[in-house]
Structures are given as structure tokens and as C-alpha cells.
């Protein structure tokens, strides 16, 4: 057994646990949240996949952006996303986080949410049916297995660009940068 094999064997329980214990932050973004209560209640039971909703972002590792994201909500989403512990996964539900969906020419919704926080996968639909939600969850498992669900790592690496995009949209964000930005830009450290 070489080092690669041993390290894979040692990180396998962590990967398995990340797959089968996805705690979704119950952040009800837009109109798409109407499809989540059927998913988590008795008929289409999401708990057998290990997906349960939790009340606070500190305990969650799955962030579902269900539905359109107005500019006010985007600020709250960024704050909530930054409060979640690593590793965390984001899934965009419906067509609105992808490119604006039905609100593609609206003056108050953020069109491509991928510019402001990293998104690992999208589930198409308006809104996706619960069966589509489960297919999305199993696709997320495959991505976690292959190590491709690395939105949180991309956020940390390219944080300067994300922060620049957020500041272009909002102006003054009101909180310091989550990770230190090396070019000595605006905001205090931490």
C-alpha cells in the first residue's frame, strides 16, 4: 500500500459522513422553498438520505438556494454562507439562481448567483419536483466522492474576486472580509 492508498483509506470515513449527513440550512430564499416541505416531510422522505433541515447555519453543511435571489436576500445569503463551517456545499434550485430564470430582466434580482458565492451544482426546474431534488442530492454525493464539490475551497482561493463582485453590487458591505485579501485592499482583517 502506498501513501496515496493509505490517505484515501483514512479520509474515506470523512467522505462517507459528508455524503450521508447533509444538514440543510433552512434558509427560505424565494418561491422555490414551497417545494422543500414536501421533500422533508413524510411523503417524500429526505431523512432517509440523511438530509435534515437545521435552524442555524453553524450546524449546517448544505445551503440550498431555492428560487430567485433579490438583492436584499443576497446580502443575507452571503452572511449566512460565511457563517457555515467548512466543508460546505451549495446547491442552486430552480432556474433563477442559474441565470435569473423568470426574473431575467428584473431590476432587483441577482441574476448569476455564481458570481457572488460558489455553487456546486444546479437542479433545473421551476420548481424542481421532489424526485428531482433527490436526484440532485445523489449527484452531489457523486461529486463529493470524486472530490469535485469544492465550492468552499474555491471561495477561499478566489475570495478577492468574490469580494470584489459583492462590493461592486452592494457598495459598502458592512462586514470585514472573511479571509484576508493580500493586496491590502479595503476593510479590516480577520
Amino acid at each position: 500500500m502506498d501513501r496515496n492508498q493509505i490517505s484515501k483509506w483514512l479520509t474515506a470515513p470523512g467522505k462517507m459522513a459528508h455524503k450521508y449527513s447533509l444538514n440543510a440550512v433552512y434558509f427560505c430564499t424565494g418561491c422555490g422553498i414551497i417545494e422543500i416541505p414536501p421533500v422533508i416531510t413524510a411523503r417524500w422522505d429526505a431523512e432517509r438520505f440523511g438530509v435534515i433541515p437545521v435552524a442555524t447555519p453553524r450546524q449546517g453543511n448544505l445551503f440550498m438556494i431555492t428560487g430567485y435571489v433579490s438583492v436584499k436576500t443576497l446580502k443575507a445569503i452571503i452572511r449566512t454562507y460565511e457563517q457555515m463551517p467548512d466543508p460546505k456545499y451549495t446547491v442552486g434550485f430552480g432556474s433563477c439562481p442559474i441565470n435569473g430564470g423568470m426574473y431575467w430582466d428584473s431590476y432587483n434580482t441577482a441574476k448569476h448567483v455564481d458570481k457572488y458565492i460558489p455553487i456546486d451544482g444546479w437542479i433545473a426546474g421551476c420548481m424542481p419536483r421532489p424526485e428531482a431534488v433527490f436526484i440532485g442530492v445523489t449527484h452531489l454525493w457523486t461529486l463529493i466522492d470524486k472530490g469535485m464539490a469544492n465550492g468552499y475551497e474555491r471561495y477561499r482561493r478566489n475570495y478577492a474576486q468574490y469580494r470584489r463582485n459583492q462590493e461592486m453590487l452592494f457598495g459598502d458591505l458592512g462586514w470585514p472580509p472573511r479571509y484576508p485579501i493580500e493586496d491590502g485592499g479595503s476593510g479590516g482583517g480577520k
Partner: protein
Amino acid sequence: MTRTILSIILAPLLAAAVGLLFMGISRKIMARIHWRYGPPLLQPVIDIIRLLTQRGFSHGGMFDLGLVLSLAGAVTVVLFIPFGGWCALCGSGGLLVILYLMLLMPLGIALSGGAGGNPNTSIGISRKLILALGYEVPFLFIVLAVMDHYGTISLARVVELQRESGWALFSWPLCVPGAAYLLILPAVMGTRPFDMAGAPQEISSGPMVEYAGQYLALAHLQHAFAIFVALAMFVNMFLGGAPEPVTFILKMLVVFTGGVLVHASFPRFRVEQAIGYLWRWPTALAFLGLVATVASR
């Protein structure tokens, strides 16, 4: 000597394993009551493994130490409770030490949550401590009745005496405190209708709102220990303990299933309703049981 050290190391591990298994069983039974499949039986274990690989955020020294204190209290209590013929530290203290140490669990969470800085934790902590005040009064009467009837403070001796004279739950006068303990068991375990301390919908999980990653793993473990302690005390004091661990776990499982059925059927009380209930019938029953025990000496 080595046997003692070995049992001191093994007892908390076994208690954690049993507690986590019972948490999984409770989720499965609740799912079946809801006409759905549930998570796998070892889902709490998967949750804890996942939480241990996440990096949590600390809010200062007291935040960390309070949680460690709570978990330490839970682990220490387990050492004094006989677990089906095995007992790590049964030769000293017994029921009095258990009464003391049981209060470390909510106190530790209260200390840690207080350092969190979130108003939801303050509300949750106040609810948790008020609930502890609520169930400690009948619990004290029950333990006093048991100690008086068997004339000893050692829990192992209580188990031994029940092996000769039959289960305490079905014998006069200890059936009255036993019934009182059954009435306060959901409060001690922290399940519905008494789970207002960690209510997700009302106060964003109360004291656990700021726990992330490894801290939440420790908090889940502490909850597993709390379940184990509440059930093991009941089985030892009123159901005669057991000569070997398997029967012990089976007895705990029977009592736990009753608790889960109550958990699935009841909504959540408010904290003043909980105190109003706990200080009325269970306290009256426990007090009557104590009086009957002293009178029939």
C-alpha cells in the same frame, strides 16, 4: 486494579455507543410512526463523524471549557452507574455523587452558551436551567425514597437487593416513586414534551445555536450520555438492574421505546407549563412515595 482501570475506560465508551444507538433507534421509530422510512440506524454516528471533520468556530475560552465541563460531567456520572454487572467506581459514593454530578451537564452547557454571545443561547439556557430545577425536586424525593427503603446509598447494593426481593417498580411502597420517575423521564432525557430548551423552531436550537463542527459533535455526545444516564438510573433503581449487559440494554430499550412514543405524540410545552406540571403531580407522587416508604419501614 487493572480491572478497575479497564472498566473506567470502557464504561464511557459503552455508554456513548448505547446512547448513540438509542438516538438512532428513536429516529427510526419516529419515522415509522410517521409512515415513512427513516435514516439508517447509525445515522447519529455518521453525523458525529461528519461533525468531527468540520472546523468549528470558537467564541473564547469559556465557550470551549463549558462544553468540555458538561461532557466531563456526563462521562463521570456514567462511571458510578452499574451497567449490568459491571461497575467502574461503585464502591464509593453512589447515589449522592450521582445526584451532584448530574447537574454538571446542563450547567456546563449553560456556561458555554453564555459565552456565545447570541441572545438565543440566553433564552435556551434559561429554559434549560428552569427545566432542570423542575425535575430535580421530584427526582430528589424519588432517590431519597429508594435510599431509605433499601437502607444504602450504593446503587450496586440496590441492584443486589432487588435481585432477592423482586423489581421495585412492582412492589409496595416503591411503585409510587417509580410511577413518579416514569412521569418525569421525558424531562430528564430532554425529549418532547420537554424539549423546549433546544427548540429549533422557536429559539434556533437554544444553547446549541453557536456550536459548529467539533463542538456540535461533543454536544451530541453529551446528549447521548444524558439519555443513557436517565434510562440507566431508572433501570437500576426500579427494574432491578441486570446480571449481564444485554438484558440491561433490553430493559433500557423497553423504557426508551415508551419515551419515544410519548415524544412522537406530544407537542412542546412552554417552560411555565412544564414547571407547573413537574411540581404538581410527579412531585406529589414522589413525596407520597417518600412518606409511604418512611412509614412502612
